[in-house]
């Protein structure tokens, strides 16, 4: 009996040995986002806003975040007429800078609400009593 539900996937893994996971960041061209994943497992995508989604591992006893995506990357390049190729790669900071300028409200909301609460990071100047 095959280890797979479908014959197509059984055939795929006859031709390709299952890959070994390494933490990675990559561009998903179909959904126009940068994805960062540090663990291979089943996970739930939690949409924070139009720009950010975080990945939470399933089937674990503890809350464990294993990745995130930043959305609308190529859109911002196209809208702001940023060249797709220049001398050397773009720094992530340059990409984020362009996205922040395009979507300032999503960043301020995220930093204050999500980073401070979910990741337990103190945010300077943030009024925790007011937020509670």
């Amino acid at each position, binding site marked *: 009996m095959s280890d*797979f539900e479908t014959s197509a996937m059984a055939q795929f893994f006859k031709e390709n*040995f299952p890959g070994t996971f390494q933490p990675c960041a*990559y561009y998903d061209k179909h959904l126009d986002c940068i994805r960062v994943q540090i663990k291979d497992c089943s996970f739930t995508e939690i949409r924070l806003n139009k720009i950010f989604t975080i990945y939470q591992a399933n089937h674990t006893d503890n809350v464990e975040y294993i990745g995130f995506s930043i959305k609308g990357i190529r859109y911002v390049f196209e809208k702001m007429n940023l060249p797709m190729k220049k001398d050397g790669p773009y720094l992530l900071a340059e990409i984020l800078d362009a996205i922040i300028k395009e979507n300032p409200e999503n960043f301020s909301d995220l930093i204050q609400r999500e980073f401070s609460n979910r990741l337990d990071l103190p945010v300077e100047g943030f009024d925790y009593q007011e937020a509670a």
Partner: protein
Amino acid sequence: MIDGWALDDQKKPEVKQFGILQGDLIRLNERGQISMLAQFDGIVAPGLIIARHFFRGLNRRLYDDGSMEADEDKLIHTWRPTNDFDWPYPYSKPRKLPPVQNCTFVVIISPNKRHKENWPEIYGWINRWNWVDEDPKLPEVPLNWSSRYKEKLYTRKGGRNE
């Protein structure tokens, strides 16, 4: 190719064929994202035909396949599968798990507009699949669906609460 529902006529869904690019499967495997491949095999391929809710359009900016309005075209099929899958050890086999509590499963699809000449039989290309939180009042619907998606197209009868 995978059978699923097309909603061109929202009153009369039709079974059509959906595909995935071989290159997408290869890249997932090269990165070792084999739990997603196990979910594709165990949930997406056999389950797209039992999708319950159908939406169109993502509520966020998206450039794809030469279009600055690709967000408007994306199709979203959702349902609650009877199992989840992962693949913790590549030298072993995929593992069947219970479904994720309080979640529903989402498949995002690009309609086949620009590649009809080479792939006339393909209605849509499967781009992404994942679990999302479920709306507690609407079974098998993603939480806050109206902020995620532009429009709801259709709901098939016969869900787990009917």
